[in-house]
């Protein structure tokens, strides 16, 4: 190729790879029942939560790390990980003025300004640094509407009855290896409660930042939408560049009652490791939503661009009659990244509907697998699913796989599956170039065209961001 080949272009470094120098309160490496008790004690938790953690820990000991995914990585030494790290600061800040300026600066640098003057006008943000939430914006304004949006730790203190009722009700503590691990040691995360009939007045968002090099990150997110309530929630995440791997094992639970809806969007940009596959986050996440009520709706939208390893299947349990589950996903892998991601749509109630749109883009030597299950239960009369799984290959060393599983016990359920694979060809790029469009822009035009159906689902402010992020991630990958 001519010099326009991006092989010659300097790859854009990961913008979020810096480390914040800050004093942390860390416990020693390793995991045992004592460590679980210590975490719970540090957080001054009620007994029901300690018992929840201990049950989870005992379950975890009996479980096996899953090996069915299309992923390869060296064995993880669970005793070589720090399970609790928190920036040292006085008890929970009464106002943002008391938050360590270094932390505020960090979030500024990440493009998530928290301070009064600079913060986004229509998005409330919960900022999580290593294991703890450091600030939540617009709490008071949301409270006026009866909306609870706070860190998980605060929710445990202020709304223990809600936590006790809903925690583990969607993802039980023995659901799988990583969910059990999370349930035992989770440190913080976000809690959202939208009461009956309330439409949340602004976007809610949690931003996760891993800072320490040897710390695992285990957050827990719980969102409950009561009858007729609705909310749109977005999570973002970044991490510094270390040449070791950090473990991230999160659990997200969504509960939706009659006529309620939750739209959950993720832009995942954890550090992916360097071009030779050194370093990067191991991302093992369990996300599941339960449409408990009739006509309830859950929509997952994810843009997965980071992490060395991604293992993630945001799912919907469609119990309520006429409930709706959606999954829109863009997963991009480059260099040596590996992703095994998809969804599970479990149709229980009658006339439940689900839509799956998955767009996998593999560049470099990466591997990108879609794995999805559509299950039609005995009572899912008149249920429908539509799935579309498209893969785009860039270059000739990347791999794409699609594993659709279908289980149906209901003859009157309709399942439709479409799949396609394409490759960005030299001729297509040349065509765009010969019209004055630069090589990089040509690639990103084609990629964003490929992802449009998914980007259209993202909240407006983030769709453009996602577009830029993909372009950035692909720099240097075509040629």
């Amino acid at each position: 190729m001519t010099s326009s080949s991006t092989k010659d272009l300097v790859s854009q470094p990961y913008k979020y790879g810096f480390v914040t120098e800050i004093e942390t309160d860390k416990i020693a490496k390793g995991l045992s029942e004592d460590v679980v008790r210590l975490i719970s004690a540090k957080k001054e938790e009620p007994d029901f939560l300690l018992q929840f953690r201990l049950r989870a820990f005992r379950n975890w000991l009996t479980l096996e790390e899953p090996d069915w995914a299309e992923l390869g990585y060296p064995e993880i030494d669970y005793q070589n990980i720090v399970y609790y790290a928190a920036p040292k600061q006085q008890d929970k800040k009464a106002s943002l003025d008391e938050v360590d300026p270094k932390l505020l600066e960090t979030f500024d640098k990440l493009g998530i300004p928290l301070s009064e003057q600079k913060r986004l006008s229509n998005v409330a943000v919960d900022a999580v640094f290593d294991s703890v939430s450091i600030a939540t914006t617009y709490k008071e304004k949301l409270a006026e509407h009866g909306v609870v949006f706070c860190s998980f730790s605060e929710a445990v203190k202020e709304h223990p009855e809600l936590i006790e009722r809903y925690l583990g009700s969607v993802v039980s503590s023995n659901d799988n290896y990583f969910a059990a691990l999370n349930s035992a040691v989770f440190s913080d995360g976000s809690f959202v409660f939208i009461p009956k009939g309330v439409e949340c007045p602004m976007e809610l968002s949690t931003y996760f930042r891993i800072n320490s090099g040897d710390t695992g990150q285990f957050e827990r997110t719980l969102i409950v939408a009561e009858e007729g309530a609705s909310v749109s929630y977005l999570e973002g995440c970044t991490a510094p560049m270390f040449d070791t791997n950090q473990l991230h094992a999160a659990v997200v639970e969504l509960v939706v009652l009659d006529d309620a809806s939750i739209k959950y969007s993720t832009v995942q940009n954890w550090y992916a490791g360097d071009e030779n596959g050194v370093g990067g986050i191991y991302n093992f996440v369990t996300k599941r939503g339960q449409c408990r009520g009739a006509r309830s709706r859950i929509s997952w939208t994810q843009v997965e661009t980071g992490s060395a390893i991604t293992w993630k299947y945001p799912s919907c349990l469609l119990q309520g009659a006429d409930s709706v589950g959606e999954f829109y996903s863009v997963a991009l892998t480059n260099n040596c990244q590996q992703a095994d991601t998809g969804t599970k749509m479990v149709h229980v109630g009658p006339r439940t509907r689900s839509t799956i749109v998955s767009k996998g883009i593999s560049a470099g030597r990466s591997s990108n697998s879609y794995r999805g299950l559509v299950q039609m239960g005995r009572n899912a009369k008149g249920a429908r699913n539509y799935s579309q799984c498209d893969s785009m290959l860039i270059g000739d060393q990347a791999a794409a796989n699609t594993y659709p599983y279908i289980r149906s016990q209901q003859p009157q359920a309709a399942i439709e599956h479409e799949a396609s694979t394409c490759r960005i060809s030299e001729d297509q790029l040349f065509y765009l170039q010969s019209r004055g469009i630069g090589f990089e822009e040509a690639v990103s035009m084609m990629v964003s065209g490929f992802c449009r159906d998914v980007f259209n689902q993202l909240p407006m402010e983030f769709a453009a961001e996602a577009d830029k992020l993909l372009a950035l991630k692909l720099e240097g990958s075509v040629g």
Partner: protein
Amino acid sequence: MIRPDAELLLEITDLHAAVEDKPILKGVNLQVRAGEIHAVMGRNGSGKSTLSKVLAGHPAYRVTGGSVRYRSQDLFELEPEERARLGVFLGFQYPVEIPGVSNLEFLRVATNARREKQGSEELDTFAFEDHVREKLAVVQMDPAFLERSVNEGFSGGEKKRNEILQMALLEPVVSILDETDSGLDIDALRIVAGGVNQLATTDNATLLITHYQRLLDEITPDYVHVMAAGRILRTGGRELALELEQTGYDWVDKELAAQGVA
């Protein structure tokens, strides 16, 4: 229109090019001045499309010798997108489909890339819609095509019209139209030819690659070149095309044999 004092836009000198180490162009010489229309003819496989792609900068074709100057600049120093911005246009023999990329957005980005070089102001979405509607008239194209993905599912003829629409938008200085006439029905041929004539001025030049006189009935060339075995074997006026229509290319073999190229 031939004017010996017109600006020399394109000067191809002893051009050699190869694809995958297979030599295809073997010494092409050609000079194109402003205001001129050149027809390039020749058998299948003689190297016409290769010449056009080398001029546009396709990465699969390697220049192995000779030079091309475009308005006294070394063309090969420029990236393909830079050539386009400076006014080199290639209408493809086989325009590719680009699923997912909106034709309208593509045309707008391309037009603005060219306009920036011309010193014209950038057209935003609304201004561009008006602008493109004007140009659609040149090829009598249905605006519905703007809403679709670039060339996706377009018929052969529709793709060719879309190429001329791009030419109208980009206002090129040198246009190379590679078999723009093939695949067009009789009416479309007339419309497209009319469009090309409308766009031809005394400041620009057109290279028409074609197999058929019927296009040259509509667009009168100043020169007709016959390519064979990677070179221009013969050059004449418009009468050469008419002559070819009668004689075909049998004489080409004799002439090549006489020159020791078989």
